[in-house]
């Protein structure tokens, strides 16, 4: 059985085209593409320009967990037998096509693993999420170098982290080495565009090791210290930390691990849909109660929740795991450069920001 394969540089597009023709035809090979000067994950349609040289602005999480989705649609109609009764036509079919995410970063894959727990390790596993998750193969690219704001090794991820992907793709001098990490990954390696990779395995391992070392040198080792409880519950700490925050949703919507959602019934006359859409804990409406009371009316409290969820509460529920993959997107994408990494470091050190 093949466990590694090789692709020469310049043939990236050939492979993308050849990957699972069935999925390709449905527009479900998702690749980081240049759109103007912004890199986003998009279906690999003809004319798209794949870009692997820098991380995409937004993660590929929307492929499995879309920004908005129709849970079901409904239509009221009169019962032809009995005009006093109303019947409901309900469509709750779940669409889950075969999908390949090509060129994710290890932090993107880690993000999906973090969301997996929330939607599967619960009393009410989520059929919508899980249907798509099962059909998705993740091909991850080893990060060649840290970008501004990256801090993955500090939260237990890393530029060559393999545990959350199906295939690891590592750029070496003239090409890429592909390693299968799961059965789904094995299937990818059978693609005829790929050559045998045995001769390049050692070099790829070196590149991965160097990438990891470089990141550790730049941002540090995994920080396992717990947050200082007194500081974590200090109102003054959060007010100072949130001072410049504008309260928008850029951080949450660019985050590969944020999974909070809202549900809205949208009905016009006799038909409508139940929609699930991403929520954002930095929005005022996030915990606005029907009574009009809002337990997190101030942005300081909302920031505490955002960081608390990732670095305290999630771990309490799932074996101490940190719900942040250190991708740095919230930092790079924030209009006022809020740095979650420094806020967490301050909480762990017990110092003020």
């Amino acid at each position, binding site marked *: 059985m093949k466990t590694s394969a090789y692709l020469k540089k310049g043939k990236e597009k050939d492979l993308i085209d050849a990957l699972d023709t069935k999925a390709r035809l449905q527009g479900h090979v998702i690749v980081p593409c240049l*759109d103007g000067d912004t890199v986003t994950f998009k279906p690999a349609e003809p004319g798209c320009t794949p870009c692997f040289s820098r991380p995409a602005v937004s993660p590929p999480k929307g492929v499995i967990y879309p920004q908005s989705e129709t849970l079901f649609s409904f239509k009221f109609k009169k019962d032809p037998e009995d005009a006093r009764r109303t019947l409901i036509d309900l469509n709750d079919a779940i669409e889950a096509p075969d999908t390949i995410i090509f060129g994710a970063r290890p932090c993107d894959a880690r993000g999906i693993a973090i969301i997996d727990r929330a939607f599967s390790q619960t009393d009410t596993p989520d059929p919508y999420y899980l249907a798509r998750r099962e059909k998705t193969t993740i091909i991850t690219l080893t990060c060649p170098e840290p970008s501004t704001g990256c801090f993955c090794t500090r939260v237990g991820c890393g530029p060559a982290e393999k545990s959350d992907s199906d295939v690891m793709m590592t750029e070496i001098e003239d090409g890429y080495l592909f390693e299968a990490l799961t059965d789904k990954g094995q299937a990818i390696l059978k693609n005829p565009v790929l050559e045998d990779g045995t001769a390049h395995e050692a070099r790829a391992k070196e590149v991965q090791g160097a990438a990891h070392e470089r990141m550790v040198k730049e941002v540090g080792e995994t920080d396992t210290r717990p947050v200082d409880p007194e500081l974590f519950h200090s109102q003054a700490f959060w007010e100072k930390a949130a001072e410049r925050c504008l309260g928008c949703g850029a951080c949450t919507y660019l985050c590969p691990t944020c999974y909070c959602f809202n549900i809205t019934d949208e009905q016009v006359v006799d038909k409508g849909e139940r929609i699930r*859409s991403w929520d954002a804990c930095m929005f005022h409406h996030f915990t606005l109660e029907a009574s009009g009371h809002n337990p997190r009316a101030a942005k300081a409290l909302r920031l505490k929740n955002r960081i608390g969820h990732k670095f305290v509460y999630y771990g309490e529920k799932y074996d101490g795991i940190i719900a942040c993959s250190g991708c740095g997107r919230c930092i790079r994408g924030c209009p006022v450069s809020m740095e979650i990494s420094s806020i967490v470091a301050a909480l762990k050190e017990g110092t003020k920001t």
Partner: protein
Amino acid sequence: MNIEKLKEIVRTVLPSVDVVIGYKKGLDALHPVPCFVTSPDEIDALVLNPACTHNLAAYLPSLKKKTAVVVKGCESRTVVQLVQEGLIKRENVVVIGVPCQGVLSARKVLNAINHQPVVEAAFENDAVIVKTRKAETRLALNDVASDKCLTCQYPTPVLSDHLAGEQVESKVDEQAAYQDIRQFDAQSLEERRAYWLKEFDRCIRCYACRNACPMCVCRESCIAETRDPHWMSQKATLNEKMMFHMIHAIHLAGRCTECGECERACPMGIPVAKLKKKINMEMKELFGYEPGISIDDKPPMYTFKVEEEKIEEHKIR
């Protein structure tokens, strides 16, 4: 931009206010961040250079304190407009004006240096020298300035209690202030529609543009999110995204002071300021009004005339 002069002013002003809003070192040399100075020992951390792009006046309506704020030309217009509309009280604000030769577009700089992490940056009069791990690049300020600066008419603040530096004259002829919009408008309707559809397709409805906008004052009652009534669908479709941006732009008709924060804040690089500038151009042609120039002006949308001089269809025969 004279940082020493600014620090001196802040030292004088600080005892008479609760907070001074300025800039300090941030994520990297391209990204200084807003800072809130409340004690004299914080003054030395202040920075001032062409990377200081945020419109700090955006914080004024929500701060219920006596505040001194550092503003460049366009941002001083924001203060004026906020006072005009009664959103802040003039006596609660001390305006520290900074004459400005233009600010950087971090996006343009990053494009010019292949998105390499910035290690250091040095600023000269008309250039910025950016150092990355691999190279040092000298970029002409004009090539990497924010779009708004290329047609700026008000480089010196229109309102200030203190001025940190010498007055700067606009380098752009008044007639050319909207040349970029006229050029864009020269395209066919189909071309412009295709342009906007492509741009708005990237929108993630994070509302960074709205929240960074100093004139977006609906806050928690924004039409994009209200549930009761439920005006807009929560679907992330192109139609909904487009609708939100149109509402945002129309709400700013005759109010936008062209600080460009909406566009700078957008993590997806959507040129949303262009829409607002287009509407401002129309407002100027129709009503001869420019937002944020004089405190005593009234925005045209705040007034009513039975017969408008330049709007034909309103003339009842």
